[in-house]
């Protein structure tokens, strides 16, 4: 591999790495902005608020990240989350199930929806958009049917069977609240991170998203791994639903529409590519928190929720544009002028000479070093001259063209 090639690749790598830092940087900037200009923003209570309001979106955003990496989309994660929660709530309230069993039911129902999505996409080859759009409506309907279109209230704090609330928010005796949910969310994110980067399942999910046909021809069981992404998304929708119940207590029928869009937005802001094959859990979490900070921060500047939606939209577009720019930079092809070619060729001679110096005897070394210096000076001089000539030529050409146009007119 010759030097320029290596240099070029290094440069590309640098651009990519720098733009990876942009999302975390944006989060810090947004937070700092509100801390300085917002009223009462920089406080423990606000921080707890930010964390509280991000659980349910956070979980489904992690789930949907898996699906998007395979090149698919899950539009049903929001409604599946609320449907499974309201079914679990109904089991507890109306059917008298114990709380632990009701919560297990939540997870079971949401995972079943995940299986359903996965089966339609991987086995029946339905386009993910259509398959999950259907599931979105079906789950919305099932939630309302099972709950008989009545809202379900989970037990309030302090009531019997409210132990599960402490999983997501723990209040001490002095009414000091600890956002334990953040620990659960971060833990889940960490496990998801491990799955994506350290397990074969993660490998295959990336492979399927990057080039499904190549993965299939490599003998990868594409159907199985594509399916697994949807199952994970379903399972995490259930976890998010339990988090929702813990923080907000009351679950309404026909709730959850639109949540999936925030989850997708979070993943996209975090750099997950909708064409598949690229994405990270860390990025998604940052995307979720950027939205969460906006949601909590804008009211502190007397801007209400309509502004939050507006700014989230701006952030999403900015993130996607950035992603496109990043990809373009990474795959850009440089056209070599003769001068560049000259420098590349000569660089090889320099490398060869350096190799000689390394093995030569002490006396010879000095002579060779001199030679190297001369060669380098010559390269520099010729390169500059050639560049100048090329530039002059280009200018002359442009002038000619202009004159030609004038005459034509």
């Amino acid at each position, binding site marked *: 591999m010759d030097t320029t090639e290596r240099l070029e*690749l290094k440069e590309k790598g640098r651009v990519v790495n720098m733009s990876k830092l942009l999302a975390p940087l944006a989060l810090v900037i947004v937070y700092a902005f509100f801390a300085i200009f917002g009223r009462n923003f920089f406080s423990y209570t606000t921080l707890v608020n930010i964390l509280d309001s991000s659980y349910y979106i956070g979980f489904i955003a992690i789930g949907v990240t898996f699906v998007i990496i395979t090149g698919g989309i899950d539009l049903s994660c929001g409604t599946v989350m609320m449907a499974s929660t309201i079914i679990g709530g109904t089991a507890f309230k109306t059917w008298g199930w114990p709380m632990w069993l009701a919560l297990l039911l939540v997870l079971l129902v949401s995972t079943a929806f995940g299986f359903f999505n996965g089966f339609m996409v991987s086995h029946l080859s339905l386009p993910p958009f259509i398959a999950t759009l259907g599931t979105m409506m079906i789950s919305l309907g099932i939630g309302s049917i099972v709950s008989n279109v009545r809202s379900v209230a989970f037990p309030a704090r302090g009531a019997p069977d409210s132990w599960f609330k402490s999983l997501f928010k723990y209040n001490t005796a002095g009414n000091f609240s600890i956002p334990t949910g953040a620990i659960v969310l971060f833990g889940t994110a960490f496990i998801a991170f491990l799955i994506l980067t350290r*397990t074969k399942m993660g490998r295959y999910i990336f492979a399927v998203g*990057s*080039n499904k046909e*190549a993965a299939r021809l490599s*003998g*990868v*069981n594409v159907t199985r791994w594509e399916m697994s992404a949807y199952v994970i998304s379903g399972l995490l929708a259930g976890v998010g639903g339990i988090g929702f119940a813990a923080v907000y207590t009351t679950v309404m029928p026909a709730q959850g529409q639109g949540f999936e869009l925030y989850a997708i937005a979070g993943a996209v802001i975090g750099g997950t590519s909708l064409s598949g094959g*690229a994405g990270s859990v860390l990025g998604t979490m940052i995307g979720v928190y950027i939205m969460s900070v906006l949601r909590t921060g804008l009211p502190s500047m007397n801007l209400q929720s309509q502004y939050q939606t507006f700014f989230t939209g701006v952030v999403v577009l900015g993130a996607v544009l950035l992603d496109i720019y990043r990809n373009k930079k*990474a795959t850009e092809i440089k056209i070599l002028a003769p001068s560049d070619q000259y420098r590349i060729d000569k660089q090889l001679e320099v490398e060869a000479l350096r190799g000689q110096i390394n093995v030569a005897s002490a006396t010879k070394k000095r002579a060779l070093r001199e030679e190297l210096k001369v060669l380098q000076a010559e390269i520099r001089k010729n390169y500059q001259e050639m560049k100048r000539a090329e530039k002059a030529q280009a200018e002359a050409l442009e002038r000619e063209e202009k004159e030609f146009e004038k005459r034509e007119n």
Partner: protein
Amino acid sequence: MSEVVLSMKGIDKRFAGVHALKGVDFDLYYGEIHALVGENGAGKSTLMKALTGIFPKDSGEINYLGKLFNPQGPKEALDAGIAIVHQELNMMEHLTVAQNLFIGRESTKHNKWILDEKAQNRRALELFAKLNMNIEPTELVRNLTVGKQQMVEIAKAVSHNLKVLVLDEPTAALTDREIEDLFAIMRDLAAQGVGMIYISHRLDEIGVITDRVTVLRDGEYVGTKATKDLSKEEMINMMVGRVIYEKPKEKSTVDEDAPVVLKVENLNAGRLVQNVSFELRKGEILGFAGLMGAGRTETMRALYGADKSSGDVWVNGRKVNINEPLDAVKVGIGYLSEDRKRFGLAVNLSVEENVVMPSLEELTPGAFIHRKNLDKVAETFVDKLSIRTPSIDQIVNNLSGGNQQKVVIAKWLIKNSSILIFDEPTRGIDVGAKSEIYHLMNELVAEGKSIIMISSELNEVLRMSDRVAVMCEGKLTGFLDIEDATQEKVMHLATLRM
């Protein structure tokens, strides 16, 4: 004969590193059907693209209707009366025949605000009547047979005040009956003075329908002759009579008693794979030769389980059932696709992720990945194949074509597949990388692996293979032992319609 409508002189075109057209001459009379023939990559399509301005020529001139002609694109060429009907038809299948015919110049009424379908259908009928075509203008294009669709394209071209019509492999997908109809229409057009350039691999048809033949070889003009003075054998000699830089293999290097590792019987998959049967022996390179569209890639995809197929396959004497690529990989077959970016690589993933993809299960048992193991294996093979990459974490997209190809080969070497299918292994890579890959293939068969190599370069086939299988239009037309294989013999089998 009559007057010249189109003449091209000294057309030259270079692409990065490839001299695709080397000063080619070509002329066409009014009312003439002129065949343009040559092997794959001889420059036929490139010449037609230069004619219609799909890309600019580097030098040379085109005279059309007695004037210099420099179209900036196919649209301008079409407006001037030069049309191409491609092998793959470009039609809007969900629209009607008439809507397709007059797209962009629809009949209108009420000051051009409202479409007038009735008038448009009438226009179409008039056009078809003039051309002796029997097609319903209100029929949806997707309901027509391929032959009829092609006629619609020709009619569309004719409706543009046509002077020159280029037909690129027009008969490849047609039945004999449809070919008859097409020829009748071509003769009609010729009688009306339209000059036609007829690109085809079917030498028999050329003898029937054309007036003159121009042969290209490796981008060079070989010659033009009247069809009636030219036998099929002479045509083949003109097509293949090139200077050979690389000496062909003289003798098979396969042991006399080498066992059969792969046996395929009556493999069928659609029109391009019909009753294909062959055997591959241990340590053998079996070359698959044939012209474009002979069905070689389709045969291998069917064998590999990438497409649905029927037929019997034995690996090492054991009957196997291959329904999915996964099954083929399990019995030790590796497939290197002709289109590595679409089918061979996940270009946005790293070298390491790509090379270990088929063999993850063996390299790291259990759910978790042992990065160290994988890195070691990947690095070993990056070294062994001298893949030039700054690190194994480099994204594959950033590597050169030759190195990308080696990444795909590394995949199957790591998997330790004993039967390797190499489909156009040297396509789109430079000379240096090419000889490295040849060297590698020889090493692999010396180690006891067996290779099926599809190649469209006759040189390559004769240089690498121990035995050559030749296909033509979905059928295996013959085998040649390397000792008595010549370019002429291969080409004869490749144009033998059975």
